[in-house]
């Protein structure tokens, strides 16, 4: 048999490609796609276009003159005397965003694995309640949750008062640690839930079997348990790192403007600083970083053969 024999078999195709019952026409998706192209696609396109335009001499908006200055301005400073120098301000902002997100991801991961495993090993009734408790914060406004965290860690808040009893000074609000704490607080459920979803499917008798076969406790965790929850861990990392990288409220409300993350600088350029083109260039950079991270995560999960769907 050769491959060529399969070729002459047209004509019948149109008939056999008929829809199966219940599978509605793909035309149904046209309206949502057109809407999203308008409401999501065009805004993204506008950002890219704006990033190559000049800022008007007065007011907000853009001047329709092509330039790559905005991207240069991310790294190079034009001095008044006409010379140029490396400008590290925005590199620092990027580094701040990246490092805060990384720390947030690591801390939430370290906390979430035990919590997810612990919930997964409770009995069914308790498990439902605990999952609900972890899910509930997701339904509560991030603004309010961040505000609550601010009240707790404020100098005169409960922690401050308690430490005051021992004459220990407590002043963490409006500092990088406060921002990071806020990020951890807000995104922790996003890490626990996917790991729990993996852990719940794990048959804990396997661990007992491995132990029975002579594996040490830590070996069991490393060789049996961790691989089983790996898809959840990868999803969790993506679900925490990506929004943390673009987060705005935590550094605004807890960092007190001293520790700017990318989103804050973008917001500022579209607000008070009134430099839309430069803000757009930063936004494009943020999109690129996010997509890069998505590609890395997808690469890892594909190589490992885990099915991790981000969308």
């Amino acid at each position: 048999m050769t491959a060529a024999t399969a070729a002459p078999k047209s004509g019948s195709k149109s008939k056999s490609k008929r829809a199966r019952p219940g599978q509605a026409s793909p035309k149904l998706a046209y309206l949502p796609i057109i809407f999203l192209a308008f409401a999501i696609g065009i805004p993204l396109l506008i950002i890219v276009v704006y990033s190559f335009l000049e800022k008007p001499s007065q007011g907000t908006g853009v001047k329709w003159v092509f330039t790559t200055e905005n991207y240069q301005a991310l790294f190079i400073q034009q001095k008044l005397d006409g010379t140029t120098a490396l400008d590290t301000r925005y590199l620092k902002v990027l580094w701040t965003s990246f490092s805060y997100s990384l720390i947030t991801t690591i801390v939430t991961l370290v906390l979430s694995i035990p919590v997810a495993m612990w919930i997964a090993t409770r009995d069914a009734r308790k498990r439902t309640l605990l999952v609900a408790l972890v899910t509930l914060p997701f339904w509560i406004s991030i603004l309010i949750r961040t505000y609550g965290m601010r009240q707790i860690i404020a100098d005169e808040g409960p922690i401050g008062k308690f430490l005051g009893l021992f004459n220990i000074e407590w002043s963490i609000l409006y500092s990088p640690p406060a921002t990071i704490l806020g990020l951890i607080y807000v995104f922790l459920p996003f890490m626990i839930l996917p790991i729990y979803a993996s852990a719940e499917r794990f048959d804990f008798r396997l661990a007992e079997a491995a132990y029975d076969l002579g594996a040490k406790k830590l070996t069991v965790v490393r060789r049996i348990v961790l691989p089983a929850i790996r898809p959840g861990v990868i999803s969790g990392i993506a679900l925490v790192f990506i929004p943390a990288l673009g987060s705005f409220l935590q550094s605004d409300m807890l960092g007190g403007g001293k520790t700017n993350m990318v989103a804050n600088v973008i917001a500022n350029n579209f607000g008070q600083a009134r430099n839309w083109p430069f803000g757009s260039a930063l936004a494009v950079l943020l999109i690129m970083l996010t997509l890069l991270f998505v590609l890395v995560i997808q690469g890892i999960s594909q190589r490992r053969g885990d099915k991790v769907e981000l969308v």
Partner: protein
Amino acid sequence: MSEKYLEIRNIVKVYPTPEGGEVRALDDVSLDIAAGEFFILLGPSGCGKTTLLRSIAGLEYPDSGEIILLGDRIDDKPPYERPVNTVFQSYALFPHMTVGENIAFGLEMEKIEKDEVAKRVVEALEQVKLSGYENRLPSQLSGGQQQRVALARALAKKPKVLLLDEPLSALDLKLRRGMQVELKRLQRETGITFVFVTHDQEEAMSMGDRIAVFSQGKIVQLDSPVNVYRRPINAYVADFIGETNLIEGTIVAGGIELPGGNLLPISQLADDSFIPESGQVTVAIRPEDLVLASDGLISGTVRDVIFTGDSVRVHVTVGDIEVIASLASYGTSIPAQGSQVALNPEHRAARTVAS
């Protein structure tokens, strides 16, 4: 063949395989089904029988060929325009509708008046002995009851042809036997043409007026249950339908030489046996057609004796093959394991089959 009711003409259906090859699920299949017939499509899984059924229903579209119902070509019509209905293997009841709503659904699609719909729902439930179950949800019924609802739902439409896709395969043996009798009765009373897919040869024989035996996308034999059983066209059918000892023999002068050196005379074979001039032939003998004899054609050592209630199955090693005889469990002397026995086929019960 009687009048032309449902005609299947040269149906071909090819599926691509994941490896890039293709499978001919239906390979130029043609057959005629008569009005009021209980017609069986029989074969192992993957032989194409379900594909043919689904092609009649409109749930698959053949690559080529025609399906003609009462003179109308229906192979190009969507399922909802075909006057045929299906009882699905998985029942496929609508989980969000009550039993009554499930049955009424198909009637409402025909824009039948409300009163008439209600009447026909009651009638259909009576037919399947589920009166009073209108307001139950499918999830509140047993598998057997769900099966009956699926049947009632299709019957209520009074289809020209009722297609049944292994409807009994999920039921236990006792329930299945009961349903077989009931289906046969229902078919006789309603006069509706049934096309019934199964891989269970016993089910096929107990219900069918005619059986089409499928293998690899082709019909191997199309005949009455008795003929399919008694006159299998080849070794495949003989082996698939019921249980058969297939014994390789060599054509010699005056008969067939069997393993062990005994000669089976031609005169002992069924009269329509397929007998080549020379060479190897396959002799098919049903276990129940073998009887113990003091001087039998087939002699060997008893290896196992298995009591099954209505019969005793004796496994006899003859040379390097094993022959099974099914003896009546009452009134026969049962040979002991390890003893030497001789077996003879009943007169003209052995036949040669093409391999």
